[in-house]
Protein backbone atom coordinates (compact mmCIF):
# COMPACT_ATOMS: atom_id res chain seq x y z
CA UNK A 1 0.00 0.00 0.00
CA UNK A 2 1.81 3.16 1.09
CA UNK A 3 5.35 3.14 -0.27
CA UNK A 4 6.40 6.65 0.64
CA UNK A 5 9.33 6.45 3.09
CA UNK A 6 8.61 7.90 6.45
CA UNK A 7 11.64 10.11 6.22
CA UNK A 8 9.85 12.12 3.51
CA UNK A 9 7.14 12.97 5.96
CA UNK A 10 9.72 13.81 8.58
CA UNK A 11 11.59 16.14 6.30
CA UNK A 12 8.33 17.77 5.33
CA UNK A 13 7.51 18.28 8.98
CA UNK A 14 10.96 19.74 9.53
CA UNK A 15 10.46 22.17 6.68
CA UNK A 16 7.04 23.17 7.95
CA UNK A 17 8.44 23.66 11.41
CA UNK A 18 11.23 25.84 10.10
CA UNK A 19 8.75 27.90 8.13
CA UNK A 20 6.69 28.21 11.28
CA UNK A 21 9.70 29.50 13.14
CA UNK A 22 10.43 31.99 10.41
CA UNK A 23 6.82 33.11 10.47
CA UNK A 24 6.96 33.46 14.23
CA UNK A 25 9.99 35.68 13.97
CA UNK A 26 8.90 37.79 11.06
CA UNK A 27 5.19 38.30 11.52
CA UNK A 28 4.24 41.42 13.43
CA UNK A 29 0.55 40.79 13.75
CA UNK A 30 -0.15 39.01 17.00
CA UNK A 31 -2.77 36.81 15.39
CA UNK A 32 -0.37 35.85 12.62
CA UNK A 33 2.25 34.95 15.18
CA UNK A 34 -0.34 32.84 16.91
CA UNK A 35 -1.04 31.09 13.66
CA UNK A 36 2.64 30.41 13.14
CA UNK A 37 2.65 28.68 16.49
CA UNK A 38 -0.20 26.52 15.26
CA UNK A 39 1.81 25.79 12.15
CA UNK A 40 4.70 24.56 14.25
CA UNK A 41 2.38 22.39 16.28
CA UNK A 42 1.04 20.87 13.09
CA UNK A 43 4.53 20.12 11.88
CA UNK A 44 5.23 18.32 15.12
CA UNK A 45 1.98 16.42 14.80
CA UNK A 46 2.99 15.26 11.36
CA UNK A 47 6.25 13.95 12.77
CA UNK A 48 4.32 12.16 15.49
CA UNK A 49 1.96 10.53 13.08
CA UNK A 50 4.82 9.52 10.80
CA UNK A 51 6.69 7.87 13.63
CA UNK A 52 3.54 6.21 14.83
CA UNK A 53 3.09 4.78 11.37
CA UNK A 54 6.66 3.63 11.16
CA UNK A 55 6.78 1.72 14.42
CA UNK A 56 3.18 0.70 14.04
CA UNK A 57 2.53 2.15 17.50
CA UNK A 58 -0.59 4.18 18.15
CA UNK A 59 0.82 6.15 21.06
CA UNK A 60 2.04 8.77 18.65
CA UNK A 61 -1.52 9.31 17.51
CA UNK A 62 -2.61 9.69 21.12
CA UNK A 63 0.00 12.34 21.54
CA UNK A 64 -1.30 14.10 18.48
CA UNK A 65 -4.78 14.03 19.93
CA UNK A 66 -3.53 15.60 23.10
CA UNK A 67 -1.59 18.18 21.17
CA UNK A 68 -4.70 19.11 19.25
CA UNK A 69 -6.78 19.36 22.40
CA UNK A 70 -4.22 21.47 24.17
CA UNK A 71 -3.88 23.62 21.10
CA UNK A 72 -7.62 24.21 21.13
CA UNK A 73 -7.55 25.29 24.74
CA UNK A 74 -4.51 27.42 24.12
CA UNK A 75 -6.14 29.15 21.20
CA UNK A 76 -9.29 29.83 23.17
CA UNK A 77 -7.36 31.58 25.92
CA UNK A 78 -4.82 33.12 23.60
CA UNK A 79 -7.39 34.73 21.38
CA UNK A 80 -9.21 36.03 24.40
CA UNK A 81 -5.95 37.64 25.43
CA UNK A 82 -5.45 38.98 21.94
CA UNK A 83 -8.88 40.59 22.05
CA UNK A 84 -8.07 42.14 25.41
CA UNK A 85 -4.80 43.48 24.08
CA UNK A 86 -6.46 44.85 20.98
CA UNK A 87 -9.03 46.62 23.10
CA UNK A 88 -6.49 48.05 25.51
CA UNK A 89 -3.69 49.00 23.15
CA UNK A 90 -5.74 49.69 20.04
CA UNK A 91 -3.22 47.75 18.01
CA UNK A 92 -2.43 44.22 16.92
CA UNK A 93 1.21 44.92 16.26
CA UNK A 94 3.22 42.81 18.64
CA UNK A 95 5.82 45.53 18.77
CA UNK A 96 3.37 47.90 20.37
CA UNK A 97 2.99 45.41 23.16
CA UNK A 98 6.37 45.89 24.74
CA UNK A 99 5.71 47.17 28.22
CA UNK A 100 7.20 44.12 29.87
CA UNK A 101 10.84 45.09 29.78
CA UNK A 102 13.67 46.62 31.77
Amino acid at each position, binding site marked *: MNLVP*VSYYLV*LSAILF*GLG*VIAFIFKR*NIIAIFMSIELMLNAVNLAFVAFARQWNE*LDGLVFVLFVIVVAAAEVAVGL*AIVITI*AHNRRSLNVEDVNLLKF
Partner: protein
Amino acid sequence: MSLPFILFFVCAGLAILGAVLLIVSREPIHSALSLILVMVALAILYLTLGAEFIAAVQVIVYAGAIMVLFVFVIMLLNAGVEERTNWSQMAKYAGLPLAVVLLLEIAQWFWRSPTSARAVNGTPEAHPTHALSVLLFRQYVFPFEATSILILIAILGALVLAKRQE
Protein backbone atom coordinates in the same frame (compact mmCIF):
# COMPACT_ATOMS: atom_id res chain seq x y z
CA MET B 1 6.11 7.41 -9.90
CA SER B 2 3.18 5.68 -8.34
CA LEU B 3 -0.01 7.22 -7.12
CA PRO B 4 0.92 7.49 -3.43
CA PHE B 5 4.03 9.47 -4.34
CA ILE B 6 2.07 11.82 -6.51
CA LEU B 7 -0.46 12.29 -3.74
CA PHE B 8 2.28 12.84 -1.21
CA PHE B 9 4.14 15.37 -3.25
CA VAL B 10 0.96 17.23 -4.17
CA CYS B 11 -0.08 17.47 -0.54
CA ALA B 12 3.41 18.30 0.64
CA GLY B 13 3.68 20.98 -2.00
CA LEU B 14 0.33 22.40 -0.93
CA ALA B 15 1.41 22.37 2.69
CA ILE B 16 4.66 24.15 2.01
CA LEU B 17 2.93 26.58 -0.30
CA GLY B 18 0.46 27.31 2.46
CA ALA B 19 3.22 27.86 4.97
CA VAL B 20 5.05 30.22 2.65
CA LEU B 21 1.84 32.11 1.92
CA LEU B 22 1.27 32.38 5.66
CA ILE B 23 4.57 34.16 5.90
CA VAL B 24 4.41 36.40 2.89
CA SER B 25 0.76 37.47 2.97
CA ARG B 26 0.30 40.62 4.96
CA GLU B 27 -3.45 40.29 5.26
CA PRO B 28 -4.16 38.27 8.40
CA ILE B 29 -7.16 36.60 6.79
CA HIS B 30 -4.98 35.41 3.95
CA SER B 31 -2.55 33.97 6.45
CA ALA B 32 -5.47 32.20 8.09
CA LEU B 33 -6.64 30.78 4.77
CA SER B 34 -3.19 29.55 3.88
CA LEU B 35 -2.90 27.95 7.28
CA ILE B 36 -6.20 26.18 6.66
CA LEU B 37 -4.74 24.97 3.41
CA VAL B 38 -1.76 23.58 5.28
CA MET B 39 -3.98 21.82 7.73
CA VAL B 40 -6.16 20.22 5.11
CA ALA B 41 -3.08 19.05 3.24
CA LEU B 42 -1.72 17.59 6.43
CA ALA B 43 -5.04 15.86 7.03
CA ILE B 44 -4.73 14.16 3.69
CA LEU B 45 -1.17 13.17 4.55
CA TYR B 46 -2.46 11.67 7.77
CA LEU B 47 -4.87 9.66 5.67
CA THR B 48 -2.04 8.37 3.58
CA LEU B 49 -0.32 7.42 6.82
CA GLY B 50 -3.32 5.40 7.86
CA ALA B 51 -4.36 7.73 10.67
CA GLU B 52 -7.81 8.50 9.38
CA PHE B 53 -9.23 9.31 12.76
CA ILE B 54 -6.50 11.81 13.36
CA ALA B 55 -7.13 13.20 9.92
CA ALA B 56 -10.79 13.71 10.67
CA VAL B 57 -10.04 15.25 14.05
CA GLN B 58 -7.43 17.44 12.43
CA VAL B 59 -9.99 18.85 10.04
CA ILE B 60 -12.80 19.07 12.55
CA VAL B 61 -10.86 20.66 15.37
CA TYR B 62 -8.11 22.55 13.65
CA ALA B 63 -9.70 23.60 10.40
CA GLY B 64 -13.25 23.52 11.66
CA ALA B 65 -12.94 25.06 15.08
CA ILE B 66 -9.60 26.63 15.83
CA MET B 67 -9.18 28.38 12.52
CA VAL B 68 -12.80 29.46 12.59
CA LEU B 69 -11.99 31.12 15.86
CA PHE B 70 -9.05 32.83 14.23
CA VAL B 71 -11.08 34.05 11.30
CA PHE B 72 -13.78 35.11 13.68
CA VAL B 73 -11.39 37.14 15.80
CA ILE B 74 -9.83 38.66 12.75
CA MET B 75 -13.24 39.74 11.54
CA LEU B 76 -14.19 40.95 14.98
CA LEU B 77 -11.09 43.07 15.41
CA ASN B 78 -11.18 43.97 11.75
CA ALA B 79 -7.44 43.39 11.69
CA GLY B 80 -6.02 45.36 8.82
CA VAL B 81 -2.82 44.98 6.86
CA GLU B 82 0.11 44.61 9.23
CA GLU B 83 2.39 47.61 8.98
CA ARG B 84 6.10 47.28 8.40
CA THR B 85 8.13 48.18 11.44
CA ASN B 86 11.70 47.23 12.13
CA TRP B 87 12.10 47.49 15.82
CA SER B 88 13.61 44.13 16.57
CA GLN B 89 17.12 44.24 15.16
CA MET B 90 17.68 40.77 16.57
CA ALA B 91 14.80 39.34 14.58
CA LYS B 92 15.81 41.31 11.53
CA TYR B 93 19.42 40.22 11.27
CA ALA B 94 19.77 37.05 13.29
CA GLY B 95 16.29 35.61 12.89
CA LEU B 96 16.20 34.41 9.31
CA PRO B 97 19.64 32.80 9.22
CA LEU B 98 18.98 31.11 12.53
CA ALA B 99 15.64 29.78 11.43
CA VAL B 100 17.10 28.51 8.16
CA VAL B 101 19.93 26.83 10.02
CA LEU B 102 17.44 25.23 12.36
CA LEU B 103 15.33 24.05 9.43
CA LEU B 104 18.34 22.53 7.72
CA GLU B 105 19.50 20.94 10.91
CA ILE B 106 16.22 19.24 11.63
CA ALA B 107 15.75 18.19 8.02
CA GLN B 108 19.24 16.73 7.90
CA TRP B 109 18.65 15.13 11.24
CA PHE B 110 15.52 13.37 10.08
CA TRP B 111 17.01 12.55 6.71
CA ARG B 112 20.13 10.99 8.11
CA SER B 113 18.41 9.37 11.02
CA PRO B 114 18.36 5.57 10.93
CA THR B 115 14.63 5.57 10.27
CA SER B 116 15.10 7.18 6.90
CA ALA B 117 16.33 4.17 5.00
CA ARG B 118 13.34 1.91 5.11
CA ALA B 119 9.82 2.59 4.06
CA VAL B 120 6.74 2.25 6.22
CA ASN B 121 6.83 -1.21 7.72
CA GLY B 122 4.16 -3.48 9.05
CA THR B 123 0.46 -3.27 8.30
CA PRO B 124 -1.85 -1.18 10.48
CA GLU B 125 -4.53 -2.78 12.63
CA ALA B 126 -7.82 -3.75 11.08
CA HIS B 127 -9.58 -1.03 13.05
CA PRO B 128 -6.99 1.58 13.97
CA THR B 129 -9.69 3.87 15.31
CA HIS B 130 -10.91 1.20 17.68
CA ALA B 131 -7.37 0.37 18.81
CA LEU B 132 -6.73 4.06 19.32
CA SER B 133 -9.84 4.44 21.44
CA VAL B 134 -8.79 1.47 23.56
CA LEU B 135 -5.35 2.97 24.05
CA LEU B 136 -6.81 6.35 24.85
CA PHE B 137 -9.33 5.17 27.40
CA ARG B 138 -7.23 2.51 29.03
CA GLN B 139 -3.59 3.51 29.13
CA TYR B 140 -3.95 7.25 28.66
CA VAL B 141 -7.16 7.76 30.57
CA PHE B 142 -5.59 9.98 33.18
CA PRO B 143 -4.01 12.41 30.72
CA PHE B 144 -7.30 12.35 28.89
CA GLU B 145 -9.18 13.47 31.97
CA ALA B 146 -6.47 16.00 32.67
CA THR B 147 -6.97 17.51 29.24
CA SER B 148 -10.68 17.73 29.86
CA ILE B 149 -10.02 19.68 33.02
CA LEU B 150 -7.56 21.80 31.09
CA ILE B 151 -10.23 22.63 28.55
CA LEU B 152 -12.66 23.54 31.30
CA ILE B 153 -10.11 25.89 32.79
CA ALA B 154 -9.40 27.32 29.37
CA ILE B 155 -13.09 28.03 28.85
CA LEU B 156 -13.29 29.80 32.19
CA GLY B 157 -10.16 31.79 31.45
CA ALA B 158 -11.45 32.84 28.06
CA LEU B 159 -14.74 33.89 29.60
CA VAL B 160 -13.05 35.93 32.28
CA LEU B 161 -10.79 37.63 29.80
CA ALA B 162 -13.65 38.38 27.46
CA LYS B 163 -15.92 39.64 30.22
CA ARG B 164 -13.43 42.23 31.29
CA GLN B 165 -14.19 44.16 28.15
CA GLU B 166 -17.61 45.26 29.37
